[in-house]
């Protein structure tokens, strides 16, 4: 129908030949068939897989988030316990320290008292020793000295001794008053 094109009342709106129409529809049918049977199933299957993958990913992420939240809670709990424990240990240490200090102090005081006492006892002993020695030596020396001064022997022990003793006694009576 070549001559029809452009000659009829419809001009170029009339197809040159029905062949175009038929070929167009046949080709379209073939394309639809391929797209329908091959292409769309391929894409849709892949979309389903992708949706599953994404959904799975979200679930995994949620799971991980839950785990993280649990770990955080556990960590916080542990931290609080640790704080408590630290405080308790600190308190205990402080108490122990105080106790040890008190013990040490009382021990030191005891020691000091004991040392003072023993020193005092030693002094007392040495004093009485010195007194004894003094009593003996001073009597001796005094007798000897007096004998030299008097030029005579004062070996008459009984007499001398009596004099010396009485002297010493008089000394003893004097000394505590000092």
């Amino acid at each position, binding site marked *: 129908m*070549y001559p029809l094109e452009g000659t009829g009342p419809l001009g170029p709106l009339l197809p040159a030949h029905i*062949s*175009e129409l038929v*070929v*167009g529809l046949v080709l379209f049918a073939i394309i639809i068939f391929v*797209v329908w049977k091959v292409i*769309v199933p*391929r894409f849709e299957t*892949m979309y389903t897989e992708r949706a599953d*993958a994404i959904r799975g990913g979200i679930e995994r992420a949620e799971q991980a988030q839950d785990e993280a939240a649990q770990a955080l809670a556990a960590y916080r709990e542990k931290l609080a316990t640790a704080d408590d424990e630290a405080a308790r240990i600190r308190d205990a240490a402080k108490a122990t320290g105080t106790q040890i200090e008190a013990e040490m102090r009382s021990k030191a005081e005891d020691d000091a008292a004991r040392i003072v006492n023993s020193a005092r006892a030693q002094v007392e002993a040495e004093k009485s020793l010195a007194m004894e020695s003094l009593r003996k030596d001073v009597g001796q020396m005094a007798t000897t000295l007096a004998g030299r001064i008097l030029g005579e022997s004062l070996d008459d022990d009984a007499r001398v001794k009596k004099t010396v003793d009485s002297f010493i006694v008089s000394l003893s009576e004097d000394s505590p008053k000092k």
Partner: protein
Amino acid sequence: MAYGPSGLTVLETEVPTFGVSAFDSRPLFPSERWQECHPHEGLAPQICSTSEYATWTDIWITNHILQAVIAAILVIGFWLIVSHKPQVVPSKRQWIGEYVYTMIRNGVAREIIGDNYHKYVPWLVAMFTFIIVNNLFGSFFLFMFPTFSKVGFVWGFAIITWILYNAVGIKKWGFFPYVKKMIVPHGVPGPILILVTPLEFLSNFIIRPITLALRLFANLFAGHLLVMIFVVGGTYLLTQIKDNIIYNVAGGFSLLISFGIFALELLVAYLQAYIFVVLTAQYVSSAQEEAH
């Protein structure tokens, strides 16, 4: 119209002949009778009717039929390649396919048809890609001719779309309830129905396929005509007019403009394919939706 020289041989003639002749299909294996009716330059063109000259090869094996076949092969090849072993994480090749596929599947089918859009996806995807490839042939150097500026292809698509949406409606509602639904708008008072019903009938059953076909056809036909006028006319003015500098300048200028028109044609090629499937989806949606 008589058969003058086709578009490009115009350059060698004294007076250019513009017209639809460049839109004529040419047989790939022309018969003798066809050659007589389409003489080479210098011979007087004859007016022949189809029955006089055409063998079946003159009609069924032409450059434009071949072009449509190549387009179909390209479309099928494209989809087979981009959808080959699709992965959850797409490759670049797959991504391109998915981009086109989801544009039609989600952007057109799901958006417009709604719930049961899945079964229309193959139709819309096939239609969109077939139309856009054929349209792009209009700016593609091997063909330089948009297949759908041959109106026969377009009528075929309009008819098949018309059958589709009416079949969907009749299947869902039954014949008479469907026709009633389409021509008697819900909530319109009686007297106005006398006015509205014929209009709705015209609009939904007659005008729709016609506008669908004409919109696609006329855009491509006019676009190609425009390109030809600027390219052929511009070339003629630039090279064939020897003694008028203004004509030469105008010819050069119109060649420059033809580049802009080519860019426009690329946009039109996409836009018309998109509009065609959007309207198809729209008609299917209106056929199956509840009374409006």
